[in-house]
């Protein structure tokens, strides 16, 4: 039944539209409004459902380029997930440890992981970049990035 990739996508989108519509119908009513807050969301939900149906019945074959775009080797998937993990760790620790240390570590670690082998220039770039950005934001733009454990 779900032969083409577009049909699978259409089902996912239809489910999404269903959830969205369900939530839209459960929005609290506001007595005095002629046009209430739920009108546009309801319309959008129906619209998405409509396009999902169109996509399901769209017979257009996938082009080679499109197919190539969505096929990834297992190795690449793992690398992307690892970079994602790096980012999540960075966000989690940013306010606790502070911008300077986390940013320098992230740039060094992430570049190293992705295959940058010149350790000295990597270290210089990560430290100098973090310092310059920190200085630029905190002192020039007056936007305070988290200092964390270094009291600067």
């Amino acid at each position, binding site marked *: 039944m779900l032969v083409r990739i577009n049909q699978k996508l259409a089902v996912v989108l239809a489910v999404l539209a269903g959830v969205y519509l369900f939530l839209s119908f459960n929005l609290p009513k506001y007595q005095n409004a002629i046009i209430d807050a739920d009108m546009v969301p309801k319309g959008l939900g129906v619209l998405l459902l409509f396009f999902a149906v169109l996509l399901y019945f769209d017979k*257009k074959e996938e082009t080679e380029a499109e197919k190539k775009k969505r096929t990834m080797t297992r190795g690449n998937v793992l690398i992307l997930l690892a970079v994602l993990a790096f980012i999540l760790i960075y966000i989690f620790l940013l306010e606790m440890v502070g911008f300077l240390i986390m940013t320098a570590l992230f740039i060094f670690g992430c570049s190293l992981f992705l295959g940058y082998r010149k350790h000295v220039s990597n270290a210089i770039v990560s430290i100098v970049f973090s310092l310059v950005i920190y200085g630029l934001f905190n002192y020039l733009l007056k936007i305070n990035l988290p200092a964390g454990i270094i009291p600067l």
Partner: protein
Amino acid sequence: MDAFNGLMSGFQVAFSLQGILFVFIGVFVGTFIGMMPGLGPISAIAIMIPITYSMDPTVALVMMAGVYYGAIFGGSSSSILLNAPGVAGTVATAFDGYPMAQQGKAGKALAIAAIASFTGGTVSVILLMLFTPILSAVAVSFGPAEYFALMFLGLTAISSLSDGSTIKAFISATLGFMVVTIGIDSQTGTSRFTFGNPNLLEGIDFLVIALGLFALAEVSTLVLNRKDTTMNDNKDLGSLRISKEDFKEMSGPMTRQSFLGFLIGVLPGAGATIASFIAYITEKKLAKKPEEFGKGSIKGLAAPETANNAATGGAFVPLLSLGIPGSGTTAVLLGAFLVLGVQPGPLLIQDRPEVFWGIIASMYVGNIFLLILNLPLIPYIAKVLRIPRPLLISLVIIFSLIGVYAISFNTFDLYMLVVFGIIGFLMRMFSFPAAPFILAFILGGMMEQAFRQTLTISNGSLAIFLDKPIALTLIVVSLLTILVPLYTGRRKLKVNNEDHTGKTL
């Protein structure tokens, strides 16, 4: 203030020390980011937004405009040198620019591109200056019905003109509109789709969407292609000299495409990309030796380069006069305006003349900078392309994270950024265009408000649109832009199928 005085006061802004400095920074950074394969003007503008937070709005916007056309120019450099366009608008530049570079004439190709960009950019600024006040004057009388219709047209046009599947483009636009309904409804105060999370009450910041959907998604593409070593080629650029004959050959396409490119840029949905392709095709049709196209033709390089820069100027017309962006890039630019507390629209010229004329005047200056910056510095700029990919990836990720953190000081938004990065990546993977999403996100809030205001005036009756000729015409055109591609797409398919069955029999 009349146009001449306005322009003069604009030049005062542009020629102030601050003005010159920031136009220069904008153009330089734009060129730099635009050259990176995969990073386009949307990422460039989004990355630069946090830098502008505490700046004077006029100076900040002057810089942003510089980033925009700098990025377009930067994209053409990487198209010519590497056959790797950084921006969709410069894909056509590679058709003849890259063959020229392969013939050892990279320097000449870059010089032609610089001059063509300069011409296209300058002509379009002049036209922009003439047209925007006229359109603003007309738009002052527009009510919510007309605005709703205009934005609706912008959205349907960008969806039906984006490449790939039209249905997917419309889905992308619908999803963008849905995301903007998250948060407190501005008219009734109802909180919608927040799941009780206080961080969602104010809605999702547009920078989260812009950086997630574009910069982070582009990063994941860079991760996948990180072993690409074409950037390490240190080719000899050759001479930058352009002979008189070359210049003669360029002048025809440059003149025509400056005007055509501008017009296409003004239209909603069509931008630099479409302008450059149309320019390439029309010049090929007009050329006496069309067979030279694709093999390093000067005309074939000058035409799309002129047109994409002219279209960039054209795209500012609806943005400045109506406050309605016609493309993904101008949508992000509108976000930059709003962050700085400047509302573009018909009243901009009256209320903030220094901003309006400052931007226009700075575009003249910026175009000159681009020419100065690019001609002698080309060999050095080309070295930029040799930044190791792993380092580039890490830096872009950090820039995106800082950008979001600096507006919200809240790690929740950083997690949202990652979520939209993943959504952007999946959209790329399954060939959903991202530009309609961001445009719908930017326009969605305004559209909903205009729509509900209109219906409140009419007490809930849709018939009000029938009484407003301008709004009605625009809506009819919009519906046509939805239905025509869906219909012709289906018919083409039918014909193809019949052909196919015919052959097998």
